[in-house]
Structure formats: structure tokens, C-alpha cells
């Protein structure tokens, strides 16, 4: 019951978007680590009006047992949208869409984790979308990755994610709801920042091969920027003495997080 009206244009004559952003400009992003006290690790993200919480529990014993993996921990991701997070009320039971997104998020995160350090265990990642305004699966990855670090799960690096889209024929980074709805396509992606390799990639809409390549390059650039924001968010929680400035940060952080950032060589 939130009637939406199609805007006259998605790109203004001046080349700006409905919310005044440039094509390659992300929405305002706020990342917070350690926001939920019961969880072993947690984080929140506000990206424009999108608002998501992620909690990590584990490594812990896995039930039911038959899901146990002998050589590594099972990464179980549960992505859920609140009934009131979308224009129409979502039904409370998990939809097929939510199940599919849970799976692609798990695949996006796994390459960054040393799951083989906890054979037979489970690492649970619970993601709750409080308000959805475009880009939820990518925002969820940004937050989940921070929650995993906060839980002390050993990792090669954080995983940043962003959606690139197309509206009025132009490629745009980090689509909002309106741009998603009235645009011509959407390319959500996540990367490993050290190598630029892609761990999540989906697309819908209409793109030529050249447009897709360009969109992915824009996405990789935005992901690298997002990765800096993720590291800043971790610093705010894990650096013991912020007065000392950032020079000592990396050592401190690595000491805190174990292997989590060691392999990063940017």
C-alpha cells in the first residue's frame, strides 16, 4: 500500500540520477560492526534506504547431523526479508527467492573463508532485511562479511558486493528501487578484492556483451571502494587506541582477527 509512480526520467538532462547521484556514485553507506549482543559476530548496513542486519553464530555443532562435512565447516546462510521491508507485505514463510539468494550469498562468501579449519562444524550466517530499497543481496554480503570477521572466522579477506544496472541506456552503480524497477537491467556481483575475482554474478535485463563487461568493470571498482569502507568499519571496533592514528592499524587488526586480513596484498 505504498503506491509508486513511475518517474519521467531516470537520468536527468544534466546526467544525474533521480536521487541526484552521478552514474558511478554509491548511495550513502553506513556500516557498523558488533551491533547484536547475542551473536558471536554481527554487523549492520544502511545503504540508501536499504537496512540489513547480519549475525554469525559458530563455529558450532551442526544439527541435523547428516549435513556434516568431514573436511570443512558447513557455511549455512539464511537470508530473510521482514514482512514489512517491501511495498506489499511479504508472506512470513521463506520464499523460493529467499532460498536462492541464501545459496548465492553462501557461494559468494565461501571463497574468502578458511572453512577447512573447522571440519564437521557449522558457521551460521543469519541475515535480516529490515528495509529493502534495492541491492539487498549485495548489501547483505557486505554486512555478512563483516559479521564473519567480527565472529573471528578465519578469512582471506572481506567480500565487498555491489549491483550495477542500466537505466535510460546508461550504466549506473548501486541501483535504488526505482532504478531497478523502471530500468533495463541489473548485475549484482561480489569480488575477492585482492585478485578482483568474481564470487557472485547474476544479471537480468538486456545487455550487449560490451555493456556487460563495462558494467562488471564498474562493479569491480565500486567493490574496491566498498572494501575500504568495510575495513574502516572494522577498525572503528577493533583498533584499541584510535588516538594513535591509522599507521599502526593494520598490525593491530591482524592481531585481533587472526588470519583474516593477512593475505591481502593491496
Amino acid at each position: 500500500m505504498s503506491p509508486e509512480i513511475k518517474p519521467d526520467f531516470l537520468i536527468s538532462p544534466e546526467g544525474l540520477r533521480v536521487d541526484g547521484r552521478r552514474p558511478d556514485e554509491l548511495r550513502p553507506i553506513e556500516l557498523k560492526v558488533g551491533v547484536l549482543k547475542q551473536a558471536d559476530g554481527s554487523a549492520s548496513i544502511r545503504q540508501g534506504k536499504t537496512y540489513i542486519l547480519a549475525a554469525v553464530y559458530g563455529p558450532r555443532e551442526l544439527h541435523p547431523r547428516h549435513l556434516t562435512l568431514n573436511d570443512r565447516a558447513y557455511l549455512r546462510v539464511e537470508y530473510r526479508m521482514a514482512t514489512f521491508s517491501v511495498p506489499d507485505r511479504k508472506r512470513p514463510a521463506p520464499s523460493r527467492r529467499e532460498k536462492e539468494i541464501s545459496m548465492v550469498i553462501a557461494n559468494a562468501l565461501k571463497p574468502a573463508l578458511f572453512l577447512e579449519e573447522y571440519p564437521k562444524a557449522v558457521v551460521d550466517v543469519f541475515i535480516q532485511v529490515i528495509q529493502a530499497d534495492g541491492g539487498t543481496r549485495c548489501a547483505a554480503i557486505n554486512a555478512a562479511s563483516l559479521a564473519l570477521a567480527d565472529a573471528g572466522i578465519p578469512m582471506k579477506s572481506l567480500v565487498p558486493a555491489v549491483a550495477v544496472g542500466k537505466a535510460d541506456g546508461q550504466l549506473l552503480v548501486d541501483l535504488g528501487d526505482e532504478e531497478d524497477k523502471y530500468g533495463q537491467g541489473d548485475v549484482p556481483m561480489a569480488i575477492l578484492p585482492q585478485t578482483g575475482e568474481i564470487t557472485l554474478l547474476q544479471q537480468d535485463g538486456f545487455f550487449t556483451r560490451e555493456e556487460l563487461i563495462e558494467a562488471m568493470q564498474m562493479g569491480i571498482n565500486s567493490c574496491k571502494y566498498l572494501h575500504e569502507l568495510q575495513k574502516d568499519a572494522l577498525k572503528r571496533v577493533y583498533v584499541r587506541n584510535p588516538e594513535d592514528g591509522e599507521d599502526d592499524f593494520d598490525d593491530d587488526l591482524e592481531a585481533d582477527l587472526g588470519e583474516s586480513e593477512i593475505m591481502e596484498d593491496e
Partner: protein
Amino acid sequence: MGDYSSETLSHIDRKFIEDLIRKGERLDGRAFDEYRNIEIEANVVPAKAEGSALVRLGDTSVVAGVKVLVGEPYPDSPDEGVTMVTAEMSPIASPLFELGPPKEDAIELARIVDRGVRESETVDTKSLCIEEGKKVYMVFADVYPLEYDGNLIDASSIAVNAALLTTKYPEMKVEDKKVVATGNIVKLPIKNIAIEHTVSKIGNRLIIDANLREEFVQDCRLTMAVDQNDNFTALQKGGGSGPISLELVDQAMGMALDNAKEIKDLINAAVKDVE
């Protein structure tokens, strides 16, 4: 809410808490009739929900959101809208909650909070009729716990009421047999506010707003909805099977009445700024 005691609390802890209570003290130094710190943030889902609130009760927190839809009335009340409260115990909030379909505890939570809204006639459902027998507003208030450190019921009750008080939605009318927006944004018609207060019995003592470790050792709890006229509008004994005497029930009612006004004032203050 449930009976997790055997798994999670050692016998030594249990005895320690019970002894403390017997001496008149609580783990966190609160008085027996004292709530934890309450923070209410109204309208936290402004772009998508018609009303919403996030409530912190000590280290317990929940978020509630309201959606207003248009639907058909029940056959036996053709001129009344519908309200429904749901709650789930999402595993994000506690290592004690599990994935999967709702268990008894989650069903009880949802039903208690729902009863607090429906039995208290919080929403004026007669005003939610668009066309008699055909179209009415349906008001869904859904609660998601985010952190579970005890007393989800009271936190949920506060959050649902705050969310309902902030609810605004586009007015609809029937024109040529179609439902269309009038262009006005209207407030949800509220008739009565009743907040639920939960008192736990431990031994022969009563404490209000138990935290998780206190819940583990409670014999039972008593949840009481108190409305703006100090009426009791819903009551539920739960949280264990310990029996309770009439005298203690009376004493619990007194504790609820003593806290009722202050919490309602907090809610009103929190929702005042939302326009």
C-alpha cells in the same frame, strides 16, 4: 521464553541466582519491580512500512513493523477491519533459537502479543471499513526479535504498540467497484492502548522484566496487559509449569499497575516526534 534451563545454566549458577533473589537482590542490581532501561526508536522503517518501532529492553531488542492492506472482511463482521499480530523467534536473536517452522514458544509469543492488541481493542476496527461486506483495511503488525536477553513479550508489546501509534497509510475508497486512493494520508484509528507486563515467580518472590538468566530459573511467569484505564485486558500464565497462589497473582497485578503509566508515557514521547 522457553524452558532452556537444563541445557544452558549450571546448577551452581541456578542456586546462586535463587539465593540472591531470596536475599532480595537481583543479578544486575535492579529492584524487584524495576524494568531495565527502555529505549524506543519510532519509525525505523520509514520508506516501506506504514508504521514501525525498534525497542531495546536492556540487552533485549525487537523491531516491529506494520503493513496496511486492503482485503475482504470476515463474514461474521462485515463492517470491521482486521488486525493481526505475528512474531517469530528468528535465529538471529539467540543461539537458543532454531531454524525451521515455529515451535510452541514462538506460537505462544505471537498469540500473547496478538491477544494484547485484539482483546484490548487497541485499533478501532469499525473505522477500518471501506465498503461494508466488500472491502476493509487489514492491519498486520509483525515482530522480529533481534537480541534475546529475556522478556521478549514486553519488548514486543511495547514495539507493536509504538508501531501502531506511528502508522499512517493512504486512504482508499471504492469507485466504480474498484478500490482507488483518495490522495489523503490518514492515521490508524487507535481506541485503547494496553501494554503487557511480565512478572516472573522465583521461589516465593516476584520480579518484573526478567532477563535471560532469571528466566532460566523462574517457576513460571505471568503476563498482564494493562490498558490506559488500568483495566486488565489479557493475562497469561506461562514460562514453566510452577503453580502460583492467588496472593502472588494479586501482588503481580500490583507490580504491573505500578509500571503501566510510566511505560505508556515513554511510548507516547517516542512517537510524538513522528509526523
